[in-house]
């Protein structure tokens, strides 16, 4: 409580907590992208900016150590993050000047979330386009931080995925690795089930710690859980919403398994649904965004189950979007005000029954 009271600017404090909660995820993203990049390097490095940076910073590519993973990962993530910050900052500055208000530092969080949701191969065009949409459509036209009904980063990523056909998670993850046709771990399962995972050397533990291919920040369940703990302890996010999403996913995945699909996603057990793909990251950092989710307690339960149901529906029924988290969260965010409206209308009816 003491961190959120009025002494000082509460909005900045919340932003600091949110950035702090993304620290473990960011560190995991750096190490994992370095690890994945170096693993896939057998075919020789490419010649784009990120690959050149990686070549320049790494000390030994044949026998990589922690430093090499960190340096190579940083050379993947940092140019993307800096570009996202630059684009976001420029638009924020323009909007602030046009609207005669101070610059809101929230664009830093948006840029970080946006970058962490992209694969390492995301082109700079995608970043410029996505961040522009995130700041302008996700935040600017609604009047600023806290006034939107969507998470701006989520909107930016969704627009990129819709606009650029290859960007929705099925495309190659690393630009610089010529001939590397790997895609994220979820798509691997989609194609070949557990056998494909075993072939790519993915087991439950490597998935838990995050040493699996996937979009930059979404691979490590451990890092996501640490971030969630920070957000839950400070009560920035609602535990009911998070619990509803996780419980919903486990319940529905188990139900789908029971219904007896032999192969494909239908037979994927619930723990793989949690470990692979960006569900955990999306549930904590995007689904629970306090601004873009339902604001009544019953509404939070409903929205959480809705997100889980949509994710499972799209995962099972639609092979184009194997991961399905981004469109599901977007739909649930759009429906959140409607859910709240229904909950409030029901509560007013209940209240009217017992008044004096």
């Amino acid at each position, binding site marked *: *409580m003491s961190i*959120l*009271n*009025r*002494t*000082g*600017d*509460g*909005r900045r*404090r*919340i932003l600091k907590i949110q950035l702090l909660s993304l620290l473990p995820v960011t560190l995991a993203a750096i190490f994992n992208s370095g690890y994945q990049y170096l693993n896939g390097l057998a075919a020789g490095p490419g010649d784009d900016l990120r690959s050149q940076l990686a070549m320049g910073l790494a000390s030994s590519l044949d026998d990589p150590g922690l430093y090499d993973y960190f340096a190579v990962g940083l050379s993947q993530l940092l140019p993307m993050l800096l570009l996202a910050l630059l684009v976001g900052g420029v638009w924020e500055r323009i909007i602030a000047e046009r609207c005669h208000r101070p610059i809101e530092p929230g664009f830093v969080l948006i840029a970080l979330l946006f970058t962490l949701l992209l694969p390492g191969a995301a082109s700079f065009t995608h970043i410029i386009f996505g961040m522009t949409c995130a700041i302008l459509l996700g935040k600017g036209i609604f*009047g*600023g*931080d*806290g*006034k939107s009904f969507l998470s701006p980063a989520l909107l930016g990523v969704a627009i990129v995925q819709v606009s650029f056909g290859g960007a929705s998670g099925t495309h190659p993850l690393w630009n610089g690795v010529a001939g590397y046709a790997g895609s994220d771990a979820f798509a691997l399962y989609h194609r070949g089930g557990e056998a494909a995972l075993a072939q790519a050397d993915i087991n439950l533990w490597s998935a838990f710690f995050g040493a699996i291919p996937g979009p930059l920040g979404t691979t490590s369940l451990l890092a996501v859980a640490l971030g969630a703990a920070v957000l839950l302890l*400070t*009560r*920035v*996010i*609602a*535990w*009911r919403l998070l619990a509803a999403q996780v419980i919903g996913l486990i319940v529905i995945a188990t139900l789908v398994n029971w219904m007896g699909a032999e192969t494909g996603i239908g037979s994927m057990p619930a723990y793989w649904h949690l470990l692979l793909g960006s569900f955990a990251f999306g549930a904590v950092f995007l689904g629970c965004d*306090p*601004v873009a989710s339902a*604001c*009544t*307690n019953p509404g939070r339960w409903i929205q959480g189950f809705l997100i889980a149901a949509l994710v499972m529906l799209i995962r099972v029924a639609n092979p184009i979007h194997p991961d399905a988290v981004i469109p599901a969260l977007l739909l649930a965010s759009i429906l959140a005000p409607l859910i*709240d409206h229904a*909950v*409030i209308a029901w*509560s*007013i009816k209940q*209240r*009217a029954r*017992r*008044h*004096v």
Partner: protein
Amino acid sequence: MPGSLDLETRKITRLALLGSDYRGVNPELLCQAGDEVRAGSAVMRDARRPAIQVVAPRSGIVSKVERGPRRKLVALHIDVDDSLVEREFTRPASQEKEAQREFMLKTGTWSSLRTRPFGNIPDPAAEPAALFITALDAEPLAPPPAPIIEAFAPEFSAAVNALACISSAPFYLCHAPDYKPAFDPASGAISQVFDGGSSAGLPGVHIQALCPIGFAGGEVWHIGYQEVIALGHLLLHGKPWLQRVISLGGEAVDNPRCLQVSVGAAIDDLLAGEICDGPLQLRAGSAIYGRPLDPGQAWLAAGQRQLTVTRRAADEAPAEDPGVGALIPGDWLEALAPPGVFPVPLLRALQLGDAERARELGALELVEEDLAALSSACVSNSDYGRLLRRVLDQLEAAR
């Protein structure tokens, strides 16, 4: 024996009656600067319903009548002079409703009843849908009601009997789980236990649980336990109770304790020699539900039971106003909201001034104090107490 409470009694030399404590009345003064007044004698009354009177809490001389914009009464200042004896009253002739109400009106104890919605002084001819005695105080560092009620047990019981006579509505005595005040079961009072955090002592919480206010125009009345004792004192002894118990607390107070002081005492007098140096934050009430006070000109309000003084970091003292921003509907607001109220929709309705929606969401059960915790926890820098009052004023005008 009255005053058997083993507490330090603070001598004061001046006090003030605040016009803002008497919501819903249009005060007409019955004295001028320089007049002698005796404790218990009427100093002002409602211009529209002259039966509603406000009495002097101590004997003394009216030193100043302070008026604000549009000649609104801000405060009536009295220099205390204890050589003047207090006024005596005769007990009500019968247990009839009219006689009991008249006694309360004549002695000024009627003005310690409050209505919900709106927090007004009730109309002498009105009928409540329920009557609540708030015999618990769950706020941090509040004076414990149990020893105070124990010390005045006969007074408390007599007043419960009297209050049972003023209306035939359900009559609830709300108390904490660990202490049930003794009262005559023949009075018909229903004892209700409230537990659960620092909001358990707020009348708004009791009303929401037992008699929610909706659309039909009903109102409920509530009264604090110390005001009940004051009524009992008048009934048993014929003389007004001159003291109230308040607690002086907070990290910046050298010796936190309970004190007996007069209603309306000057806060500067109370705090002299009690607090440490440095930038401080004064609150009338607890650190959670209290109303921030400006240092200097401040007086104890009617019904106030707490004075909390906390330190304020030096660099935060002259913080520039960051302006009203967006409401971030975080989960931390849920724990601070009155039970049965959706905090975020209500706060949004208040920010928009949407009186109809606010009423549907339960604003009629609330007054400023119920939203104080939300105001300090919300990052939008809105003063929801003030916004709520604006909405309540609209709803009251439309009744």
